[in-house]
């Protein structure tokens, strides 16, 4: 100490300084270690290690199972045999050693010979290059020298080659000797290996999973950059991009860094309880994790719940091509729970996440992960231009609801512009309805018809104060006055004949009305917006309509409303009158007994004045109002109220033909910034997400006015559709899907030309509600059940009743000829005239008919439109043979089938189409398939299965008429022959024979 101070005077105390320096160095060392650890210790590593441990457990279990499965006796016998062989080998020890020794020597010789040859060749190539250069440059002397060297080398190479081949041959010889001596042993060994094959493969898998020293070292801090077993995994998706505003960058999905088993089978879980289906795994999780943790860990290590459709390499959406965030969204490059932008599916999950993983909303990423219930919204980023996305049931439901409820009426949505108005035309409504009914209807549509699509517009939560109710009353009165004032008034005379209620009821039940309408006592499907609710329920029309109008409507719907989807059922005057009479008996007594509220004229005038003030100065507005008569005031206010509510979005209304819709555009609503959605005072504490806002808005459309101070005419106007939670969810999903797609067109699901044609057809099928009657693509036929039950009520057997329902259209393209179908659609002619239910006339134009015809052909992969038709003239024998087969003696066809004008002999319930039409209508190939196995084509058909087997039997006399193959002849009075021959003969007769001018023999 003294020595130091004597050396030089210090400003500071050196010992203290040394201590400070030491301490700060320690602090530096600690913080360096901390830094390395902070960099090393990552959340995802824990998950990967846990997944490895789980798999290790699984593999170990499998190994012991595999080992247990080994046949112990077989193993023992192999081993004892091996002992014997070894003993016998000992006897031949000298021989064996000799061979092994000479092999060892030969190995050396072989190596040298091989090397000599190769080196000589290498040097030869060098000289050859020199020679070629010299010759090319005309250095003749040098070239000659090199040539000489080359010749010498070539000679040596030939020598070396001979030596090498000789050594090689000797070695092979010795090897064969050795193999012969050891033959028995080798065979036994491979037998033993085969026993352990499964276990061996598993052992190899295990070696990468075990926390062995080698693996631990590979994953140690600072050396883990070389070749760790725990590492980030990623999928780079070139065509699928993230939009980061100025540029689009390819997605790099790192999700499988934690979700390691997502594309593998064997880790399936039950998502409700978060338990592995495999009990080994489930038990392991229960034993190793607390309940809370177990849920999350099980989910992160699970297989994808739908591997057939996603993730697996055989599925249409393989992980390597589609990745994860293309559908689920979220932050693709993130590797922590929080910064991947996971989204909890409910409050309980959110609470658990916050507690266990410190979850919080990732504010700085604009695309948080979709909740599972909304993930189908992503389908539409690639699947565009289709009526329905296969298997995306919720999305399809949502889109269906958008179209059915007519969202596009008030909200512009790109791609929905050509959808017709969902409500009826009101330009002639005065001819149809009465003002009194209209007042009550507008106020409370569901009070009249519980299942109507017309939403509730007035008296909702933001207009429920007594003052606002009075304004609503005035507004409704004004709207009604306006509608009747502007409407065309047509007088419809009463039906020309007296209708019969009982007959009418039968007609309604059996003609096919119920494919689109719920009607009749006890018929109530609730509001499911499904096939049978396509048109309005008719169970209350008696309280609304009068017979003249209804009769005229039934006779020709388009005369009153040219755009209607109601088809023409070609009813006779009597039928139409009967139906009219019946429908008018269906009434809603409750509704009829209600009285509309009285209008307070002062309130009406105030409201009209308010609207006027928006257009002109206050004094001018007052003067203007004073000039108006009472009626004018109503008409003016009605016009303003219709404009305010946007009634013209769904209905055609005189004076509003060119108005723009009142709602906000929804084309990109799904990608609308959350900050642009007005949560207002958010009295319900709705979470700040798009889906929650949409859902709340759909369920409580006026909720964002709560607590706000607003004049009546500025209040929110969205009506209430009284949606169920499921439907509101589906609609929310559809809204979310209306968003900008960042998928490159090349990466989308592009439709082939044929697929595009199929989609066009599907659009017609959807728009015309074809599935109300027909099963198309295995869906629909909604009317079948109610129709069949109507016949059952008449005493027809349940099995027979099905015979009265509309035919299925599965495979229609294979069945009928396109020209015929086109003609049929343009001009419907009954095929099964004995049926009560009838194919209506839809009035398809040429283009629509072509599109529908094309659709059926394409859907069944048929040539379109032309196909070879080979006309054939049947011989006398062929005709005769077929005629016999058609009789009751053989197949008895005419009992059920009509033939031209000749009606079948059997019971109408079993009648079948006119076979004379077949030439124009059916395809020969289909007839053959049909004859072979009708149940295969239309399950439940009454057509008997005559064949269904390779061989069939006929009376022996048929041998005279049919082309028999070699060696076939009748035995014991029966002719056994291949079915195909008979089917061909029958088909030829149906298509050609029936049209040949030959007398049909007696039947």
């Amino acid at each position, binding site marked *: 100490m003294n020595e130091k101070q004597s050396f030089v005077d210090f400003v500071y105390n050196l010992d203290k300084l040394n201590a400070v320096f030491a301490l700060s160095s320690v602090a530096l060392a600690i913080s360096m270690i*901390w830094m390395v650890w902070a960099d090393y210790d990552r959340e995802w590593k824990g998950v990967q290690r846990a997944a490895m441990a789980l798999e290790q457990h699984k593999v170990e279990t499998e190994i012991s199972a595999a080992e247990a499965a080994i046949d112990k006796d077989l193993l023992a016998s192999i081993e004892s045999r091996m002992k014997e062989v070894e003993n016998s080998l000992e006897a031949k020890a000298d021989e064996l050693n000799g061979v092994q020794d000479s092999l060892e020597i030969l190995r050396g010789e072989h190596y040298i010979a091989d090397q000599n040859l190769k080196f000589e060749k290498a040097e030869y190539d060098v000289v050859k290059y020199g020679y070629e250069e010299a010759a090319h440059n005309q250095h003749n002397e040098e070239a000659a020298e090199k040539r000489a060297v080359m010749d010498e080398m070539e000679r040596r190479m030939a020598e070396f080659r001979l030596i090498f081949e000789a050594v090689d041959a000797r070695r092979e010889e010795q090897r064969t000797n050795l193999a012969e001596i050891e033959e028995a042993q080798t065979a036994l060994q491979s037998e033993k290996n085969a026993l352990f094959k499964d276990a061996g493969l598993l052992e190899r898998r295990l070696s990468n999973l075990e926390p062995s020293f080698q693996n631990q070292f590979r994953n140690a801090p600072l050396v883990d950059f070389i070749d760790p077993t725990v590492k980030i995994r990623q999928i780079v998706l070139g065509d699928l991009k993230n939009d980061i*505003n100025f540029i689009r960058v390819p997605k790099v999905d790192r999700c499988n860094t934690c979700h390691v088993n997502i594309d593998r089978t064997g880790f399936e879980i039950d998502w409700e309880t978060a338990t592995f289906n495999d009990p080994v795994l489930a038990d392991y999780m229960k034993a190793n994790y607390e309940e809370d943790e177990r849920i999350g860990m099980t989910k992160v290590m699970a297989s994808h719940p739908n591997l057939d459709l996603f993730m697996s390499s055989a599925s249409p959406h393989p992980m390597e091509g589609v990745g994860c965030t293309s559908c689920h969204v979220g932050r693709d490059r993130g590797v922590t729970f929080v910064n991947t932008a996971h989204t909890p599916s409910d409050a309980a999950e959110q609470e658990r996440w916050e507690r266990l993983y410190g979850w919080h909303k990732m504010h700085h990423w604009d695309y948080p992960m979709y909740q599972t219930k909304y993930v189908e919204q992503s389908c539409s980023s690639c699947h565009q231009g289709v009526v329905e996305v296969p298997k995306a049931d919720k999305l399809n439901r949502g889109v269906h609801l958008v179209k059915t409820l007519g969202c596009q009426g008030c909200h512009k949505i790109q791609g929905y512009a050509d959808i017709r108005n969902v409500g009826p035309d009101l330009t002639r409504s005065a001819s149809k309805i009465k003002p009194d009914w209209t007042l009550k209807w507008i106020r409370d549509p569901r009070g009249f018809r519980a299942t109507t699509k017309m939403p509730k517009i007035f008296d909702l939560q933001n207009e429920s104060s007594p003052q606002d109710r009075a304004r609503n009353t005035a507004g409704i009165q004004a709207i009604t006055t306006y509608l009747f004032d502007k409407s065309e008034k047509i007088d419809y005379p009463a039906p020309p004949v007296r209708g019969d209620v009982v007959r009418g009821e039968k007609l309604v039940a059996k003609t096919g009305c119920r494919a689109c309408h719920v009607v009749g006592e006890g018929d109530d499907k609730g509001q499911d917006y499904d096939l049978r609710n396509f048109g309005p329920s008719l169970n209350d029309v008696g309280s609304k309509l009068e017979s003249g109008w209804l009769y005229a409507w039934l006779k020709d719907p388009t005369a009153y409303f040219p755009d209607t989807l109601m088809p023409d059922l070609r009813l006779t005057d009597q039928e139409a009158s009967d139906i009219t009479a019946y429908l008018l008996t269906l009434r809603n007594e409750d509704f009829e007994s209600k009285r509309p509220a009285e209008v307070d004229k002062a309130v009406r005038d105030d409201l009209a004045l308010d609207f006027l003030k928006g257009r002109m100065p206050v004094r001018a507005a007052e003067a203007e109002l004073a000039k108006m008569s009472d009626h004018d005031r109503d008409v003016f206010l009605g016009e303003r109220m219709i404009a305010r509510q946007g009634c013209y979005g769904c209905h055609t209304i005189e004076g509003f033909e060119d108005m723009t819709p009142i709602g906000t555009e929804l084309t990109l609503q799904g990608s609308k910034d959350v900050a642009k959605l007005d949560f207002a005072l958010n009295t319900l504490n709705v979470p700040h997400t798009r889906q929650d806002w949409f859902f709340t808005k759909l369920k409580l459309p006026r909720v964002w006015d709560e607590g706000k101070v607003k004049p009546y005419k500025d209040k929110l106007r969205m009506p209430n559709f009284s949606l169920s939670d499921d439907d509101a969810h589906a609609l929310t999903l559809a809204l979310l899907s209306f968003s900008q797609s960042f998928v490159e067109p090349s990466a989308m699901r592009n439709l082939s030309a044929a697929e595009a044609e199929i989609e066009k057809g599907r659009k017609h099928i959807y728009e015309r509600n074809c599935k109300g009657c027909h099963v198309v693509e295995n869906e629909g036929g909604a009317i079948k059940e109610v129709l069949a039950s109507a016949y059952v009520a008449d005493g027809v057997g349940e099995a027979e009743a099905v015979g009265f329902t509309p035919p299925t259209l599965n495979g229609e393209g294979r069945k009928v000829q396109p020209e015929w179908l086109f003609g049929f659609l343009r001009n419907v002619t009954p095929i099964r005239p004995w049926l009560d239910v009838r194919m209506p006339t839809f009035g398809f134009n040429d283009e629509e008919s072509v599109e529908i015809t094309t659709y059926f052909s394409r859907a069944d992969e048929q040539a379109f439109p032309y196909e070879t038709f080979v006309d054939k003239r049947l011989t006398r024998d062929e005709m005769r043979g077929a005629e016999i087969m058609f009789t009751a003696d053989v197949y008895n066809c005419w009992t059920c089938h009509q033939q031209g004008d000749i009606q079948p002999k059997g019971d109408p319930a079993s009648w079948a189409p006119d076979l004379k039409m077949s030439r124009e209508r059916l395809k020969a190939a289909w007839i053959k398939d049909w004859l072979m196995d009708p149940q295969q084509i239309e399950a439940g058909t009454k057509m008997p299965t005559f064949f269904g087997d390779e061989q069939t039997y006929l009376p022996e006399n048929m041998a005279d008429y049919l082309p028999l193959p070699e060696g076939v002849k009748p035995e014991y009075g029966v002719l056994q022959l291949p079915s195909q021959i008979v089917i061909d003969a029958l088909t030829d007769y149906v298509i050609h024979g029936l049209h040949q001018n030959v007398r049909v023999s007696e039947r």
Partner: protein
Amino acid sequence: MEAFKSLINWLSAPEKLIGLSTVFVLVGLRTRQLWTNLAGLIGLVAFVVFFLFSFQDPNFRIIVTKPDNVPIVLLFLFVGFFMWLSMKQAWENDERIAAGGEPIEKSEYKEKVLTWPHLVYIELICLVLMTVGLLLWSILIQAPLEEPANPAKTPNPSKAPWYFLGLQEMLVYYDPWIAGVVLPTLVIVGLMAIPYIDRNTKGAGYYTFKERPFAITVFMFGFVVLWVALIVIGTFLRGPNWNFFGPYEYWDGHKLEALVNVNLSEFIYVKWMGTGLPQFWLVREVWGLILVALYFVLPPPILARTLFKDFYKQLGIERYSILVMFFLCMVALPVKMMLRWFFNLKYIVAIPEYFLNV
């Protein structure tokens, strides 16, 4: 507690905060009692207590702990500490000089030691500790990354980097070309001009206040009030839509402030003379132009005869004029602020026809 919070909220409003810090500079620097060890300790304790207390408030906590704002909290401490340190030494020197002695620095100057190891050793220690500090900071506070920039959705509030927040605050009071171009340029040119104007050698190499009260007061006013205080306001007290929010107030994006500022021309023609605004811009703005001209023409001679009499003598007319011009430009900022706060004056001269507003 709530009353205290509302008091602080109330006091934090720009006009009060700027006013208080101005008073602090003008009066505080001259108050000997503020620059002692005890006062320093009290100041530190008061700051810590205030901070700990405020930390209980969620709104305060959110804004103070934002990774971006942590340096500004440190700025409080550092500016305060170094100001206290230098002023303490200045006052001590002044007392020694008044007593006939010499500054501390001068007596220390006579004792010399070698750079190695005396300086280098402690520098090394500082280096190590600084590295430790940076490491810990980077481990404990994650880099404040934000979402990808989106031209269709800018952050609200949109804030400049912290060192430019003073300039951004000026935008409230002045047109962008003045607040963003003219004034910053003058600040730089003015700082560069100091050695050419101020040739006073007093205070060179040692701390003193009494020997150059004007220079120090003016500099402190520019630095503490017009720079640091504005940064503090910009960082902690300006929320969505650049609205003012007290330190304990929730940053509500929907908060409204009535925009009722008017131009000088409207004061003169509409409010006082009761007529409409003249059509021609020159007639309309002539009063404002005259006022601005007078602001730069009248004070220099007046000041030369009154407050700055001594400067005028020492510096001569050229350097005096330059000094006064810079001084007036600097004072123009608080002047305009006050006009805005107390009279809702938008612009003195407003010529949108030529994009010229003052």
